[in-house]
């Protein structure tokens, strides 16, 4: 019988579940059954708990800390203060941005929620009681929450430790509350272009302070083994290797004696990149007590004290000809960094990649300056579901485009189309110095406009406006457009490092004798599905089914060195390392196959999951056969085993892009907006797993919706956090989340081994502008040019009121 059919090439390919397959996430079986292993699931013998006494005020001198009542409480073992950490040199710690930060209040507090003392006890209950018994005497000082008042002559000096330093980590400081000035582009030339321009639009665009608010808050378990001198820390770390190096540098524990483990992480969004006082205090407490210490934040701690995002005041000027050809762009940003500069940016970029703010447009000349200032707010400035300051940059340019279109009396879709960088201009060097690798913006834009039937939308909008004007409706329709270009995949070691650590990444692959494999990476998934997608990259590269490949990340004792997962860098950098390591495996496999088939290496060709002899495809060796041979054949000149490692230094960043449209209906009396349509077209280059891309886009859009329509970290004038719980900090539920339509174009990155660009952050970058532009667009007929986010009910109501629509 001839029943046993040889599988076709296509069948063999599909059996791999490689690139382009909507493979189901392998992580979900354990997550959906409650079998994940998060930091708070880690329970060690003799483990104690720690928690903080936090400052109730935003700015004060700490006169005295009385710990005796807490220490007298049964179950409380220790109370650490700055005085206890000082002999170890750990009362302050370096930030990722070249500044330093108090671990525990050293003489003063600078923001509400700042860590003042660390109480260690038997369990969370004893610790909570201990915390309430620590008495701290504060002498309140004047508070600065407005970044524009921070640099006034008589402003209270926040950072007395560096008040006299004229030079900071990023150059000259002009005021004790000034951190840095960072510039890019051509100042004089830009001024000249703006002066001579036919049309100039001038606007202040504020991107408010918000917070990544991952589902799982930050935490760690630190365990110092005094017998072997080894420190192990399990923690919510987006960059475990960087944490290990920093921990070694500040603690003087040799790096080989530190093991950092990131177990399952319940979302990061940038919040878990930096180093927090909780980690340092847990480590010290474990050294002091000799037992493991667990510290896990509650929600209020997380919102109040861990890294915030945004808080950029972006003053912009954009010039154009009367026909709408953009001639220049100017931007001055005042960046509110809070009490310490704890941004997580590559060293040379204190304002991240804000200089991507020329967006998707061919702008001949531009100038950007960013001034960072201290205020009495929590430190941070992290890239919340975006690459470093890219959402800010994208929001800025997409607002400026709208304001310019208004000034020109031109449709903003047309203005965009007129100024897009053309396909044939790639690689394109922007006025602010980036080399955009690839894109086809016109194709994406036209597809988007056609998909949403843009012309019809504008007609519907005009009809609705007429009904409103005739007094037949109190609703307006807004159409929000955005075209974004991201810059992700940090990054080339020549210009990207964090604390001197080059931002390469790595993958190590080991093929087992029976033809399955394990791959380890320097990144760490926080929900991105790396175990699923990186296995797919490898499946296509080495011809082993994705389901036969185990992915491991997050343990610094076993994983190769890498800079972690944030800024959409995993696919562009670690994904490339994975492909390159796979290619090394394949190269060795080819030698083994040649030996087995008794032909020259060059006589073989790769065919999905095997090497076959050119012109004689019936003669072949599958990867499975080759793997086994590598372990049991003595092949002259070839070492046994089948392993490879690749450290990948990307030659350039990648530039994902996309075209988004949001349609909403706004009730001018209640301020309530009803989102009618959200269309998101993404070009992330080669698509590894379309299902995961769609999930990423849905998630990112929902965070964009949150940020633009209500989410914020608000302070009153005394520096009190007004949004410390999820009652006031907006996280959309399924009820508030609209339906999403996703779409794509595919322009592979020319320098990435598989052409992938990264997608996890695109929807946040493109989404915020689209939602916000829709609100602005609804009120455009009444002369609105700029209204700051978040567009919650009362702020939208106020737009209508100020435009006289309530009488």
């Amino acid at each position: 019988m001839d029943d046993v059919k040889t599988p076709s090439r296509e069948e063999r390919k599909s059996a791999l579940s490689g690139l382009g397959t909507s493979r189901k996430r392998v992580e979900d079986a354990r997550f959906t059954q409650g079998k994940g292993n998060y930091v708070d699931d880690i329970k060690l013998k003799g483990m104690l708990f720690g928690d903080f006494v936090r400052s109730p005020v935003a700015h004060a001198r700490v006169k005295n800390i009385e710990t005796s009542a807490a220490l007298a409480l049964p179950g409380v073992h220790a109370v650490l203060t700055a005085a206890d950490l000082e002999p170890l040199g750990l009362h302050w710690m370096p930030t990722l941005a070249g500044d330093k930060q108090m671990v525990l209040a050293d003489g003063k507090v600078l923001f509400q929620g700042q860590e003042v003392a660390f109480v260690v006890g038997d369990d969370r209950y004893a610790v909570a009681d201990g915390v309430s018994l620590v008495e701290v005497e504060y002498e309140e000082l004047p508070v600065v929450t407005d970044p524009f008042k921070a640099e006034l002559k008589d402003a209270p000096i926040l950072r007395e430790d560096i008040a006299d330093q004229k030079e900071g980590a990023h150059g000259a400081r002009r005021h004790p509350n000034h951190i840095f000035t960072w510039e890019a582009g051509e100042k004089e030339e830009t001024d000249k272009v703006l002066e001579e321009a036919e049309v100039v639009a001038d606007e202040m665009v504020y991107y408010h302070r918000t917070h990544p608010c991952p589902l799982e808050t930050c935490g760690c378990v630190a365990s110092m083994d005094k017998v072997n001198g080894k420190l192990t820390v399990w923690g919510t770390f987006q960059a475990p290797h960087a944490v290990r190096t920093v921990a070694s540098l500040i603690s003087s524990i040799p790096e080989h004696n530190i093991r950092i483990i990131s177990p399952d992480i319940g979302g990061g969004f940038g919040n878990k990149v930096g180093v927090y006082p909780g980690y340092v205090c847990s480590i010290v407490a474990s050294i002091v007590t000799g037992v493991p210490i667990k510290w896990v934040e509650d929600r209020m701690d997380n919102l109040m004290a861990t890294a915030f995002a945004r808080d950029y005041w972006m003053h912009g000027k954009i010039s154009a000809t009367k026909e709408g050809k953009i001639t220049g762009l100017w931007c001055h940003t005042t960046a509110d960094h809070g009490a310490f500069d704890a941004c997580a940016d590559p060293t040379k970029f204190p304002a991240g990649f804000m200089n991507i703010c020329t967006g998707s447009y061919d702008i001949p000349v531009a100038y950007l300056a960013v001034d960072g200032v201290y205020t009495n707010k929590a430190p941070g400035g992290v890239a919340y579901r975006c690459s470093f300051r890219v959402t800010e940059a994208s929001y800025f340019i997409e607002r400026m485009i709208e304001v310019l279109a208004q000034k020109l009396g031109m449709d903003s879709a047309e203005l965009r189309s007129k100024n897009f960088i053309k396909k044939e201009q790639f690689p394109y060097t922007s006025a602010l110095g980036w080399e955009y690798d690839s894109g086809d913006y016109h194709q994406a834009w036209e597809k988007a406009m056609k998909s949403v039937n843009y012309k019809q939308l504008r007609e519907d909008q005009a009809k609705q406006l007429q009904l409103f004007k005739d007094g037949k409706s109190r609703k307006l329709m807004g159409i929000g457009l955005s075209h974004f270009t991201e810059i992700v995949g940090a990054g080339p070691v020549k210009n990207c490092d964090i604390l001197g650590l080059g931002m390469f990444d790595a993958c190590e692959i080991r093929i087992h004798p029976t033809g399955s494999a394990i791959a380890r990476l320097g990144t760490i998934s926080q929900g991105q599905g790396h175990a699923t997608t990186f296995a797919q990259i490898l499946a296509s590269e080495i011809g082993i089914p994705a389901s036969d490949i185990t992915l491991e990340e997050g343990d610094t004792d076993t994983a190769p060195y890498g800079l972690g997962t944030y800024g959409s860098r995993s696919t562009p950098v670690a994904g490339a390392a994975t492909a390159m390591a796979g290619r090394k495996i394949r190269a060795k496999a080819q030698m083994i196959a040649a030996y087995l088939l008794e032909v020259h290496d060059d006589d073989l060709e790769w065919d999905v999951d095997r090497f076959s002899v050119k012109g004689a495809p019936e003669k072949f060796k599958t990867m499975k056969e080759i793997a086994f041979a590598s372990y049991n054949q003595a092949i002259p000149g070839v070492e046994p085993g089948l392993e490879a490692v690749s450290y990948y230094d990307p030659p350039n960043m990648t530039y994902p892009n996309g075209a988004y449209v949001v349609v909403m209906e706004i009730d001018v009396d209640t301020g309530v907006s009803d989102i009618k349509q959200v269309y998101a077209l993404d070009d992330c280059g080669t698509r590894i797993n379309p299902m995961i891309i769609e999930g990423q886009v849905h998630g990112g859009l929902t965070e964009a919706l949150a940020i633009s329509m209500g989410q914020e970290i608000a302070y009153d004038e005394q520096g009190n956090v007004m949004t410390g719980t999820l009652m006031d900090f907006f996280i959309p539920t399924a009820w508030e989340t609209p339906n999403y339509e996703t779409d794509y174009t595919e322009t592979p990155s020319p320098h990435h081994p598989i052409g992938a660009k990264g997608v996890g952050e695109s929807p946040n970058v493109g989404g915020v502008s689209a939602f916000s532009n829709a609100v602005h667009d609804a009120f455009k007929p009444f002369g609105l040019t700029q209204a700051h986010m978040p567009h919650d009910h009362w702020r939208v109501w106020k737009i209508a009121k100020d435009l006289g629509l309530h009488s």
Partner: protein
Amino acid sequence: MIPSAFTFYKPDNIEKAISLMSDFGDEARVIAGGHSLIPVMKQRLTDIKHLIDLSGINEIKGIEITGNQISIGAMTTQVELINNEELFKKAPIIREASLQIADPQVRNLGTIGGNVANGDPANDMPGLMQLLDATYKLSGSNGVRDVKAREFYEGAYFTVREDDEILISISFDAPSGGYAYEKQKRKIGDYATAAAGVILKVENNMCSSASIALTNLSDTPVYCNKAVDIILGKEIDNNILTQVTEACVDQSDPVADQRGPVEFKKYVAGIVIKKALTRAIERT
């Protein structure tokens, strides 16, 4: 987010609960669904030494309907109010308002008694009970007494309930006429930015009976007696609805919070009141 230590009691009858209350005075609190109390305990905004759980007392659970008389045990959950078909037939506004409280998880545990007795002006049920002119039955060491919902609330978290008294049931007559409960909120699970309930009857285009109450627009629920006086006996037209709305807004006294400033809240109050009036009239 760990409460300070407390002793937990779970009595199985109301006498035992009252006796615990009189023993411990203001150091004791009863807990019903716990959705208001537990968060403030966890934030240590309140220090309760003795916590008395009422969930073991069956005599204060359930819905009784006799003719037009409705009596609801204090420990009846919101989901039970929503699912009771008979109650829906007699007083459909209960379901309409209950479905706007928090989210399904909260409604599975949250009780009508906890909602009305806590004295939180943001809760929806106090306004609704004033709208229905309900009577609260309080049981304490001095016996049982009745208090009108419209006379129960003195200020935010302050009510006429004595320290040793427990709310055991709520009763009201089945309302007749059109009804509506309108609530604007920022998201599911949120308290009202402004909410209004209306019940009214229109006969021969004249308003023959009316009740209007507001939620989260003052430090207590607001029963809009002045607005009711204006509309009673009047022909329903746009002019009268505007006057009624204005009278309601005049009686409101909201405070600024993250939902918005006072001016906004008063404006939105006007909108929800007008919507509730219009929908109630449509339903007559």
